[in-house]
């Protein structure tokens, strides 16, 4: 169910804060060596020289539209394994947008502050920088995928694929909120049809 409609947007995110990180976060080296989970726990990586040279111009083809955050406390779950196994591909597909991976400690601290999120991780939160520049965080400003709620490898993989597909196909959207809600409605309708068809099929099989 879509949540409450847009509010007043009174606490707009200051542009001055938003612009510099966007400018520096737009591109990341793709040839970086593999790091382990332990490595990411303490990792603080400064932007490389190559990042400076490839900073996209405002409105350019590679200007970051989103900031992607991955919160994962490291449960021994199917979703965690699927994310780990497919992260490189996700990162390559989302080259234009910075991905921030919270360390295990940061993820745990985050979930201790927000207990309702426990067990839903890995959570992939996507902040829509365009929406945040426009109306801060009081209105629609992104979306999240609670990958941890998907119980089978196939579901988790499909969730990740849908996530990547959505980001790539909607990164130039002028009204992301409407498109997300439309997609959710479409999925809901598809689910309803599936239920009805399944019911009919079962009756026919009897």
């Amino acid at each position, binding site marked *: 169910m879509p949540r409450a409609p847009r509010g007043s947007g009174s*606490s707009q995110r200051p542009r001055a804060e938003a612009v510099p*990180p966007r400018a520096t976060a737009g591109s990341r080296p793709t040839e970086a060596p593999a790091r382990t989970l332990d490595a990411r726990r303490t990792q603080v990586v400064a932007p490389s020289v190559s990042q400076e040279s490839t900073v996209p111009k405002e409105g350019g083809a590679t200007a970051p539209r989103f900031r992607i955050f991955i919160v994962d406390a490291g449960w021994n779950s199917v979703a965690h394994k699927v994310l780990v196994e497919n992260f490189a591909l996700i990162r390559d597909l989302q080259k234009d947008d910075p991905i*921030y991976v919270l360390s295990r400690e940061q993820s745990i601290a985050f979930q201790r502050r927000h207990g309702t999120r426990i067990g839903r991780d890995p959570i992939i939160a996507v902040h829509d920088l365009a929406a945040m520049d426009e109306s801060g965080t009081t209105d629609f400003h992104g979306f999240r995928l609670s990958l941890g709620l*998907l119980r089978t490898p196939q579901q988790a993989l499909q969730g990740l694929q849908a996530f990547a597909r959505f980001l790539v196909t909607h990164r130039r959207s002028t009204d992301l909120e409407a498109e997300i809600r439309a997609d959710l409605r479409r999925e809901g309708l598809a689910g309803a049809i599936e239920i009805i068809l399944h*019911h009919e099929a079962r009756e026919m099989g009897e």
Partner: protein
Amino acid sequence: MPERFGDILTLLMGALAVGYVVYEIERRRRKLHDIWDVLDEEDALLTAQLEDMVERGELQPYTGATLA
């Protein structure tokens, strides 16, 4: 009387079937929105905390090739 009973039973079963479909659709809709959801004013605090971590430099764009 048996005909009326049969009609009532058919109606009851039909209502149960419709009720089940409505319940199942609602259940799946809720699950879908648990998995995918938009960020809005209810998530403002979480978003602000993540953005603050970026502003403070506690989080940097991930450059590793893999997570583990």
